[in-house]
């Protein structure tokens, strides 16, 4: 447990020291949403919802991609001697989730400011967006590990991750319609939320089980 904390601390310390990458992604989010604003103005709720999740998807690919790709080969070897793979992957999962949640927060604010506000239940949408951010970052963390091990760029990560994320994305888009005032059948909201949480749990378990095999070279 303490090792996980130390790994996390190291990741955030690196983030503080290499601020250009973090601000790079912040700028990426901001400029994408600004371009959207220029292109669309203030769209109605279906378009707004679709755009929001698509932006989250692309932001996630960019934000999470570097969690493994920034580790050089020598440094990985160093970690190999220090920690167990399970601690390492859990540290990375938490780290990329936190980064992604920050990005979700920023996109929410920017969407609100630039693209208008068709959302009826703010708090609910905030919750769904956070859940979505967690789901996206968990899946893409392992994809990032695979892509980094294959010595590939972020493009392969998108190829590997997009088909896998479609189910969660579809559920999220459906779920967030509730926040735009659509009425769901009794119990359906809870059902979808539990389903997403279950899928997240599954992804965590799979990452913990499978990462040790990726780790050794």
């Amino acid at each position, binding site marked *: 447990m303490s090792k996980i904390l130390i790994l996390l601390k190291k990741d955030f310390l690196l983030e503080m020291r290499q601020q250009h990458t973090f601000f790079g992604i912040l700028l990426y989010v901001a400029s994408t949403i600004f371009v959207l604003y220029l292109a669309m103005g203030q769209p109605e709720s279906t378009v707004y919802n679709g755009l929001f999740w698509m932006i989250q998807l692309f932001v996630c690919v960019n934000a999470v991609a570097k969690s493994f790709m920034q580790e050089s080969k020598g440094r990985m070897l160093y970690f190999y001697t220090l920690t167990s793979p399970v601690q390492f992957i859990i540290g990375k999962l938490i780290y990329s989730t936190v980064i992604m949640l920050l990005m979700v927060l920023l996109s929410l604010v920017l969407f609100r400011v630039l693209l208008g506000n068709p959302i009826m239940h703010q708090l609910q949408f905030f919750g769904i967006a956070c859940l979505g951010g967690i789901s996206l970052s968990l*899946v893409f963390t*392992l994809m990032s590990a*695979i892509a980094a*091990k*294959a*010595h*590939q760029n972020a493009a*392969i990560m998108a*190829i*590997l991750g*997009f*088909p*896998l994320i*479609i*189910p969660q994305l*579809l559920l999220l888009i459906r779920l967030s319609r509730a926040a735009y005032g659509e009425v769901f059948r009794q119990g359906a909201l809870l*059902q*979808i939320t539990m*389903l997403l949480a*279950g*899928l997240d749990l*599954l*992804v965590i378990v*799979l*990452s913990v089980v*499978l990462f040790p*095999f*990726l780790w050794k*070279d």
Partner: protein
Amino acid sequence: MKLKWWKILCILFLFFTFTAGFLIHVPIIGNLHQSIRNFFFHVPMWFGMIGLLSLSLGYSIAYLRTQNLKHDVYASEFAKTGIIFGMLGLATGSIWAKYTWGEFWSNDPKQIAAAIAVLIYLAYLVLRGSMTDFDKRARISSVYNIFAYFIYIPLIIILPRLVQSLHPGGMEGAKGGGNPALGGGSLDATMEMVFWPAVFGWLLLGLWISSLKIRLNLLANKNLINE
């Protein structure tokens, strides 16, 4: 030429499918009319695809446990045949859909799920193609294969039950209710008599195709893979 028993069984089953499938008396349900015979060709593709992909998963797990490259060859070839079955399933389904639902593609949850499966396993092949080192390729693609399978299976179990579908089965309370694949009472006894041999015939054909490709692949890499 030596034919193993299951290959003979495969030929017999498929011969039966292609003759009886076109000749038996079928019930007329809604606007399906005679197109319901496609049931013997379209539906077994999904059984074949899931069967082959499950085998691929099994061999990927076996590879990670034993580090034997032979298992990786098995996993990749089963996945490739699985993709072919998936594409054939999509093609036969789209043609059927055109004449019963009016469109080749109508964003039905089962169509989407099938397309996702094909995309996932094509990505698996892209990942394999991007690495040249044999051991590394085997290990990394096995990890992806296992991860993808366990994400995909919950999807096809859950998604069709949540949303409306044109396919039989689907949301609880809808016609056919609950079962995501088969529409409960819509199969009558004579159709079932052709359907199950068709399923096993196509599945055996998939195994046959894969086994030929596996043998070829093992021969081509004879110096790398020691038995």
